């Protein structure tokens, strides 16, 4: 509660800057209200994207400027708006209040708290719509963003400032990869801390609640912000959610910090925009999406950036998620977003059903710029594993014909099976870079060749425990993100052999 002294102080400060000039207000009248879109006459001086306020304090945003009227999308349900009500321009474009106090909070795209805690008042107003940083301010992606998932960190590496799409059917673990990445930022000590923003668009409240609980349980909420525009929120809020998330990310970027932003998911974002566009009577194109649906996503993802040192050196890494129908990545929205991003992690249902989790199709997944952000540690083993896996996939296709195989081919097949097995990983258990290296090193150097395929997973977890207990020095040395030298490799070899003596199949 504000006390009398504060009120008087506020009045005094207003008095010192008090302006005697008349202020003009642009007023309009509500003509029509159709499904959350208001058509109003008047308002001849408003601009596109300007915030307006209705009589009952309901807020809206200008989305169409016609000859005699304007179309406004409502930012809440606005049930009390009637024909003839007045609507006032504010002269402000849509903004969100951003500050460090938002960390650990759950908010909606207007910055209103959804976690029952008080609204964050201090901070900086960041515009929702902003032109992305130009080429002069940027530098190439050069720092890794560790996901803690072996398959991704070794074969589809993500760099800070990259836009990496996560694409696949429903229920294949797209959100799980994003959440694992957020959780993993806690243990990546070799690089600067990463602020994580999770933007839930058109999702069930129960799903978002589960994610918040999981982040909280893993102590990841303290460096994260959850922005939720659920399925029950108006389409306008779902449309604004990713831009609001990006505006918050830009606040931290301005301070030179690294930010990871997850858009979960852009398919529903496109649906929300399609709904708004159809109500606004904009011409419909393919799959009834409006003509600017590509621009909608490209202007958002273009705001992912790695700034150069002169501009603070911060970064925004974007992980957009797209849900496909029946593995069809050639649909309109998936192809659009694939072409915008710097690579994609493609999850496939048959891999998921065969027990490979995360169900990443390594062949169709790609990281176009992340390779240059690989650490020397992982780089020293990733190439070999990728090659072995590619050979295994080619051989496995031929081996299906049932012809007799020569011993070398059979050995390659066996190695491939173990490599595939080692890439399996449980949900919410991201690994540190050192442990990722040790697992991949063990399989590529043939130490797992004599371990039955169904025991590989147990071998890996016990091997990690053994190293943590008996050889912490090795883990510490590998955590420095430097290429392991001969001496270190010898120590790893010795430790592996020691463990194998103890390991009972």
């Amino acid at each position: 509660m504000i006390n009398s002294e504060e009120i008087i102080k506020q009045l005094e400060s207003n008095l010192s800057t008090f302006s005697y000039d008349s202020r003009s207000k642009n007023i309009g009248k509500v003509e029509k209200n159709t499904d959350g879109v208001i058509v109003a006459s008047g308002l001849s001086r408003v601009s596109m994207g300007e915030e307006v306020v209705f009589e009952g304090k309901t807020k809206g945003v200008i989305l169409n400027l016609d000859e005699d009227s304007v179309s406004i999308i409502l930012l809440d349900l606005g049930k009390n708006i009637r024909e003839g009500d007045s609507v006032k321009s504010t002269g402000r474009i849509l903004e969100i209040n951003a500050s460090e106090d938002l960390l650990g909070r759950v908010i909606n795209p207007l910055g209103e708290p959804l976690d029952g805690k008080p609204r964050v008042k201090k901070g900086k107003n960041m515009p929702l719509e902003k032109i992305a940083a130009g080429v002069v301010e940027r530098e190439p992606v050069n720092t890794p963003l560790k996901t803690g998932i072996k398959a991704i960190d070794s074969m589809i590496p993500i760099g800070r400032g990259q836009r990496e799409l996560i694409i696949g059917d429903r229920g294949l673990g797209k959100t799980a990869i994003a959440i694992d990445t957020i959780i993993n930022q806690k243990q990546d000590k070799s690089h600067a801390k990463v602020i994580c923003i999770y933007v839930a668009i058109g999702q069930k409240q129960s799903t978002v609640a589960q994610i918040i609980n999981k982040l909280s349980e893993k102590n990841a909420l303290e460096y994260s912000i959850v922005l939720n525009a659920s399925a029950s929120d108006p389409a306008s809020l779902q449309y604004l959610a990713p831009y609001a998330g990006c505006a918050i990310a830009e606040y931290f970027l301005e301070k030179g910090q690294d930010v990871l932003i997850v858009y979960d998911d852009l398919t529903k974002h496109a649906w929300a925009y399609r709904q708004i566009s159809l109500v606004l009577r904009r011409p419909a194109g393919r799959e009834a999406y409006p003509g600017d649906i590509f621009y909608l996503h490209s202007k958002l993802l273009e705001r992912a950036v790695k700034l150069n040192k002169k501009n603070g050196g911060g970064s925004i890494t974007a992980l957009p998620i797209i849900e496909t129908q029946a593995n069809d990545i050639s649909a309109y929205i998936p192809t659009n977003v694939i072409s915008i991003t710097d690579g994609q992690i493609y999850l496939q249902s048959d891999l998921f059903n065969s027990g490979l989790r995360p169900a990443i199709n390594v062949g169709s997944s790609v990281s176009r710029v992340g390779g240059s952000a690989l650490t020397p540690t992982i780089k020293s083993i990733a190439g070999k594993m990728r090659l072995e896996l590619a050979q295994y996939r080619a051989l496995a296709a031929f081996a299906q014909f049932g012809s007799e195989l020569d011993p070398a081919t059979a050995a390659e097949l066996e190695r491939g099976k173990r490599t595939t097995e080692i890439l399996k990983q449980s949900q919410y258990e991201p690994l540190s870079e050192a442990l990722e290296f040790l697992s991949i090193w063990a399989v590529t150097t043939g130490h797992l060749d004599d371990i039955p395929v169904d025991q590989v997973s147990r071998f890996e977890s016990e091997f990690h425990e053994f190293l943590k207990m008996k050889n912490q020095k090795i883990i510490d040395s590998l955590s420095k993100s430097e290429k392991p030298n001969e001496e270190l490799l010898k120590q790893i070899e010795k430790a592996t052999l020691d463990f194998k003596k103890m390991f009972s199949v």
Partner: protein
Amino acid sequence: MTRKQIKQVALRSFVRNNLDPKKVKLFSSKMTRKQLRDYIKYLKFYDARNKIIIVVPHLDMIKKTDLKVFTKFYANKKIIYQEDPSLLLGIRVINNDLVYDLNLKDSFENIRQSI
């Protein structure tokens, strides 16, 4: 009749900023229900555009010199004076969809909002 033509008809229904009842009767008799709805909308629009509403707390506060200033400033518009004691002090000028506030009520409102 297209919407553009209705707009033209509505504009021509005014003579020296005032609606001409004869013209309105003539035009409206030849319109369909939908056209008539648009015609009324445009009449309202042009009528508001031709009008300036000046609101003061009390009408006797306006001096003769003020009247001259307003007439000179809004030479081609019909000026309507209205009384609203809630303004307390000052003036409000309504020019179609633009509202200029220079009164105590608005100042208090601005202070209240900033708190």
